[in-house]
């Protein structure tokens, strides 16, 4: 009797232990997978940016290292690893060293909630969109820290501009996503995808959805501090902005995080407006694993759109930037929410 109880207890304990260790192992494997994806996506996006920029400017771009320059960014990363990590004399060493990790960890956390396909989603939290907005605004703390701790006026000005910009455009991102939340009725990303099985949200919401998408892309470009909103870096004015004093791998972290943030902004747009991993008209519904390709394809298309912005538009002044946000995007956005609410209330959405 006692032996069997002990046995049961033993079995119970060992099974709990096994489960615990299995889940920890699982977590580590998933984390490593995402880190790998993070590195590959970052390097790929840098290469893509350079090739796309070259094509826009009637150049060829890097095409020597590997087939069509595939390994170029890998070589750049290896070079950056081998570089010395320099710093300024009176820099706040602790904050200075902390800043790149702030930026890169927030970028990595943002990646976790995306539904790459029905089964590939690390963290299906029920406040998904809210989580993403919150995480993406923490990144600016890293930028502010980096600029503040560098003991360099260019870096400080760049960081302060970044603060102004991100805080302003956060509003537009939040409100334009809120417009779409009116349609879905849920913040959970997997729920949002479920809703889109009867038509992508940009089709379901027609006019206000398209306006919301335009506002989202403008605000998202500003949020990632890319041209035409790159006053944070503004090479001609500030050297390199907040990362002027960074070198080697710490610079590479900032650089990679910028590109991953761009990917995240595009991925949010894909999830909320373009049906995430759903194929158009359900043409590959029988092959669910193809969802990954649909998701990445749509995301890269939107990333390309942001690159297109970058190589077309001139940089805004700070006052123009704030005018655009507070006088145009914000009022339009508020009116747009009301219109969307009316459309949802009167059942005027387009559904298949």
């Amino acid at each position, binding site marked *: 009797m006692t032996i069997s109880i002990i046995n049961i207890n033993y079995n119970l304990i060992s099974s709990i232990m096994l489960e615990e260790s299995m889940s920890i192992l699982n977590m580590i494997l998933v984390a490593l997978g995402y880190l790998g994806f993070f590195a590959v996506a970052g390097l790929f996006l840098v290469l893509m940016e350079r090739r*796309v920029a070259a*094509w*826009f*400017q*009637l*150049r*060829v771009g890097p095409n020597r290292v590997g087939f069509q320059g595939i390994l170029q960014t890998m070589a750049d990363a290896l070079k950056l690893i081998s570089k010395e990590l320099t710093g300024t004399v009176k820099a706040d060493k602790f904050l200075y060293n902390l800043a790149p990790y702030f930026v890169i960890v927030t970028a990595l956390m943002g990646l976790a909630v995306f539904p790459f396909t029905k089964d590939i989603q690390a963290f299906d939290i029920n406040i998904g969109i809210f989580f993403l907005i919150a995480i993406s605004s923490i990144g600016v703390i890293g930028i502010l820290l980096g600029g503040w701790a560098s003991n360099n006026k260019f870096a400080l000005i760049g960081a302060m501009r970044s603060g102004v910009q991100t805080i302003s455009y956060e509003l537009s991102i939040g409100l334009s996503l809120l417009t779409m939340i009116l349609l879905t009725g849920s913040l959970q990303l997997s729920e949002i995808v479920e809703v889109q099985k009867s038509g992508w949200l940009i089709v379901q919401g027609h006019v206000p959805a398209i306006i919301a998408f335009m506002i989202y892309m403008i605000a998202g470009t500003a949020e990632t501090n890319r041209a035409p909103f790159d006053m944070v870096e503004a090479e001609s004015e500030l050297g390199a902005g907040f990362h002027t004093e960074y070198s080697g791998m710490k610079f590479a972290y900032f650089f990679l995080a910028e590109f991953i943030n761009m990917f995240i902004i595009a991925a949010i747009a894909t999830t909320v407006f373009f049906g995430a991993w759903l194929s158009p008209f359900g043409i590959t519904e029988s092959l669910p694993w193809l969802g990954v390709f649909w998701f990445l394809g749509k995301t890269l298309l939107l990333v390309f759109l942001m690159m*297109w912005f970058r*190589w*077309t538009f001139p940089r805004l002044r700070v006052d123009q930037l704030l005018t655009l946000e507070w006088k145009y995007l914000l009022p339009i956005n508020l009116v747009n929410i009301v219109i969307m609410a009316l459309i949802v209330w009167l059942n005027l959405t387009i559904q298949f």
Partner: protein
Amino acid sequence: MSYFSEIYHGIKTLLTGMSVTGKYFLTSRKGAITQQYPDNRETLKMFDRFRGEVIMPHDENNEHRCTGCQKCEIACPNGTIEIIWDRGIDEETGKKKKKIDQFVYHLSMCTMCALCIDVCPTDAIEWGQNFENSVFDRTKLTRVLNEPGSKLAPGVED
């Protein structure tokens, strides 16, 4: 209402700009201006206005057009050109006449300012398109532009 017309105008102009760059993006593979230099060395043709080095063209009779007036030597701001000249007997008239012995050109000192070419009254010198001028010994950059045994083309001085 100017608020809304401004928005409309803004979006329209942004789209115009994007269509321009978009067209360039689509045609860039054909119209790329990048020369992938060591690969296309055989077919590379430099541009008409490219200033590589000063050359003195000779025709098939080994005749050049330089009268030895030394205007280029005077015009050159940094002494790149040195003309070594002599007086010889002109076959037709039998008179003594100035002619060049060696037209010395120091490529290492040349700034490609083109003053010599502008000032030349007989168009004896012009721009060459060669740009592969790196050598291990800088004396190789001092060149004699008129070929040995060459003489002035008839009719240049008339």
